[in-house]
């Protein structure tokens, strides 16, 4: 089985911002190609990998949805060679000053320019800002290049992605940007690998979905196109850490989480939970009383409605360039999905009801 960590590090080092996932999609396709029977892209760019099951036709299908898009920035204007920015997805401007970024310049001889996010000195900012956070509208990306050169290289609408490199930390942890949600893509890959040696009755659709961060676009459209019998969405969840200790958070390194809430089919949840207990795979409970903010929210209400579950991989410092994850949690999530899929009877879906 190929190592998970090198793949994940390579994957998070690719841009693939929402709407522009192609660089990530290509690497995912290469990784999945030997693991699935059929590979395609949806009309909006989600990667669909089908691994056929062994059950009789018509076979039920389960869809594993892991979004592959990354948050980032986009150029909105150019002033004296400096770039004005807007966000693609949820970016807290307070994490931006002093970050290294890449400007993906689309002008003649398109190229990637290293740059840094500049917080202009106080004299050049509105006086009422004081030492408070500088809003995104006043932050600038600086390529260091002369204004004329910038004008010819960079266009309004060009993307800006984080440039910081992944860092391995003590205790089997990895830190970097875009671990949300490439860790789940890695978990789905681990699941597909596990299934190489496991018979499974159901068809498995591995989906690396697009544009989750800007409105779950991939989840709505891929679930509609594939029309599976069940969906497991897999995404990162808030891990306890400095500044984050409330009820929305779970410990890091103690297993993936299983979500409970209106977006989640109780029987599917129970199936995963019981199986984890049986196999002694540690799992945590996570509660989403309204909107899970994940692909599960979209998948559940696709077409006539589809039973959906959500597995979370605990992640600290979400949407900062130093997101932090326990590699073990990713492996556990992959294994749990594979075991669950292998355990599915052909008529599983007919036997479950919302009242468990």
């Amino acid at each position, binding site marked *: 089985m190929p190592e998970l960590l090198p793949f994940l590090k390579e994957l998070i080092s690719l841009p693939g911002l929402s709407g522009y996932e192609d660089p990530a999609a290509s690497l995912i396709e290469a990784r999945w190609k030997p693991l699935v029977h059929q590979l395609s892209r949806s009309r*909006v760019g989600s990667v669909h990998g089908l691994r056929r099951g062994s059950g009789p036709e018509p076979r039920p299908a389960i869809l594993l949805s892991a979004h592959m898009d990354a948050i980032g920035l986009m150029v909105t204007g150019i002033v004296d060679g400096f770039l004005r920015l807007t966000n693609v997805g949820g970016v807290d401007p307070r994490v931006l000053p002093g970050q290294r970024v890449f400007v993906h310049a689309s002008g003649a001889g398109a190229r990637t320019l290293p740059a840094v996010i500049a917080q202009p000195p106080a004299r050049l900012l509105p006086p009422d800002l004081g030492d408070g956070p500088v809003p995104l509208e006043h932050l600038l990306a600086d390529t260091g290049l002369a204004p004329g050169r910038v004008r010819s290289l960079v266009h309004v*609408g060009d993307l800006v992605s984080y440039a910081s490199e992944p860092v391995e930390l003590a205790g089997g942890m990895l830190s970097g940007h875009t671990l949300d949600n490439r860790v789940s893509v890695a978990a789905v890959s681990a699941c597909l690998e596990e299934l190489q040696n496991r018979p499974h009755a159901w068809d498995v659709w591995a989906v690396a979905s697009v544009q989750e961060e800007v409105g779950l676009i991939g989840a709505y459209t891929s679930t509609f196109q594939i029309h599976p019998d069940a969906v497991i969405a897999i995404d990162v969840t808030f891990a306890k850490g400095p500044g984050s200790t409330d009820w929305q958070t779970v410990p890091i390194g103690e297993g993936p989480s299983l979500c409970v809430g209106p977006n989640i089919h109780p029987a599917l949840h129970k199936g995963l939970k019981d199986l984890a207990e049986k196999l002694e795979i540690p799992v945590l409970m996570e509660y989403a009383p309204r909107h899970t903010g994940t692909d599960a929210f979209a998948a559940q209400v696709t077409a006539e409605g589809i039973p959906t579950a959500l597995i979370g991989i605990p992640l600290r410092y979400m949407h900062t360039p130093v997101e932090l994850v326990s590699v073990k949690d990713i492996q556990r999530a992959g294994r749990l999905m594979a075991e669950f899929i292998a355990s599915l009877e052909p008529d599983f879906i007919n036997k479950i009801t919302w009242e468990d």
Partner: protein
Amino acid sequence: MKPLIQKLTETFSPSGYENAIRAVIRAEIEPLVDELRVDALGNLIARKGTKTAGGKRIMLAAHMDEIGLMATHIDENGFIRFTGIGGIRPTALNGSRVRFVSGVPGVIGTDRITDPTKAPTLEQCFIDVGAASRKDCPVKVGDVCGFERPFLDLKKRLVAKSMDDRIACAVLIETLRQVKQSPHELYFVFTTQEEVGVRGASTSAFGIDPDLGLAVDVTATGDTPRCLKMEVALGKGPAVKVKDAGMLADPRVVAWMIRSAEKAGIPCQREVLEGGTTDARAIQLTRSGVPVGCLSIPCRYVHTPSEMVDHDDVLNAVKLLKALLSKAVTL
């Protein structure tokens, strides 16, 4: 195109009450299309041509609704309290004139304003149609009105209420007239209820199931004193949308639009809009997903009764659409 633009912008049709504008547009396009239908939400859907080899089913959407007001209460003295339909800007209300779909005109007044530096809230405004009492008032709860403001021709620049998005309706009508040859099955859709959440585009796109979607709408500009920081300006050509607050245009569609404009020598600008969205968002999310883009007409003072566009931008938008639709597309 000016008479057409005047006719379209002087018609009153707030979201959900698009009958009047639909009739105007239908009369314009009926002779030009192969098929015309109205769906359950009132979208006017016109087909021209059929898909040939290398062709696609392309949906073009311009919304025909406009922002407006809806009566919520008539007080005993005949004053009308109201709520907004779509994104109403309270700063533009006081002293404005309105016209109800029934034809009744009125003016907007406000409660006593204690702090003249602050815009009144919607709740502090009322419409006065000259009625002396509730009984005398020709307006009933639920009646809707639009802003009354005549079309203004400043030669190079044109001003009217509901340029958003009648200017795009005019662009689509003119494009329909000019496109003679196309390998595509073209759906010109005049959508409803855009201003209340891109609802008409959502159902019409589901019905049409297009291979490619293009919205035509207005966008804000950054070319007025101390305004929003934005690089779009009037007169620099129609804008190819890269992003707005609700949608990331498909990069392949953006590239196709810019390439086509450059090849045809039509000026165009790239647009990143930080607030608002268009019908393209709804089309993108339809069924299995649709590659979408949006052609924007730069427009100053959006969602006020005096929206301004540049005449050349409008003509260039037609030119660009014609160039886009006349040839096969590979994304």
